[in-house]
């Protein structure tokens, strides 16, 4: 017991020797533990870095894909706009306006239609007389009750022209004006009624179809400046 491990005799006091051995053992243990910790830390750091790189690469790929799609959408111009200022209230002109509007939606345009003066007749669903002044009532009585009864710009002949046109359009299977207006609404064509014209002509909101926006000249111009196509019908 007093002799050393390797059989050599030691001059050291056995107690001192034990203490030194214990101290060395403790140091070695601490050193091993520290190195082990460092190695583990290194491995963990490497694994984490690899995982982050992988995620980053995936995010970058997604981003590149999104950028490509955005460019494609911008290039294909799907956010292009068409603005149509509808001034006329004649059957033939309104048909043109709504055929262009629905066609433009099919072409991927956002379409806004602004209805002013006679164009408001396209939006009428009924005629109201109460709470109107005498001139307003006279106007209301003389103006068409809505798209079903608007006349033609030429050859109106006291309503014979429009009747003939409507029959011919039915024969040729052309959508009727009320159907085109309904389709335009389904296709989310933005329809704006001109407040000023409504005021002048004594047209009330309750006389017009639902789902309309209300605005003025600047509402139209605000959209028209961003439009590729603007029409005045």
């Amino acid at each position, binding site marked *: 017991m007093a002799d050393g491990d390797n059989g050599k005799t030691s001059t050291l006091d056995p107690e001192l020797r034990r203490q030194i051995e214990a101290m060395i053992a403790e140091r070695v243990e601490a050193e091993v533990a520290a190195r082990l910790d460092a190695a583990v830390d290194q491995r963990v750091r490497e694994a984490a870095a690899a995982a982050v790189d992988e995620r980053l690469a995936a995010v970058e790929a997604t981003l590149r894909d999104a950028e490509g799609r955005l460019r494609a959408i911008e290039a294909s111009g799907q956010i292009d706009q068409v603005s149509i200022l509808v001034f006329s209230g004649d059957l033939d002109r309104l048909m043109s306006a709504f*055929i262009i509007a*629905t*066609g433009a939606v*099919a*072409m991927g345009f956002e379409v806004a239609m602004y209805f002013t003066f006679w164009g408001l007749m396209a939006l009428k669903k009924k005629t109201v007389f109460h709470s109107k002044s005498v001139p307003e009532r006279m106007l209301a009585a003389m103006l068409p009750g809505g798209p079903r009864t608007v006349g033609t710009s030429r050859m109106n002949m006291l309503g014979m022209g429009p009747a003939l046109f409507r029959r011919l359009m039915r024969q040729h*299977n052309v*959508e009727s004006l009320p159907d085109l207006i309904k389709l335009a609404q389904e296709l989310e064509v933005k329809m704006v009624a001109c407040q000023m014209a409504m005021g002048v002509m004594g047209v009330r909101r309750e006389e017009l179809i639902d789902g309309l926006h209300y605005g003025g000249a600047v509402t139209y111009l605000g959209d028209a400046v961003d439009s590729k196509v603007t029409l005045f019908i």
Partner: protein
Amino acid sequence: MAAHELDCKGLNCPMPIVRLSQAMRRVAAGEVIVIEADDPAFRADLEAWVRRFGHVIETFEAVDDRVVRATVKKS
């Protein structure tokens, strides 16, 4: 991949293109829609429409003296 069919016979301008654009939204890229129409403006309208979106008219043929059939592939 089954072809989608769209019957626009009897419909007039701009209805065939309106219906086609609605149908096109429901199919995936690379899929094909077979459309029949008798609107005399259909060919010109269809060509302008695919030019805008980059879809491809794969075939365009007359079924009889009024009706035409086109196959359009979504880009």
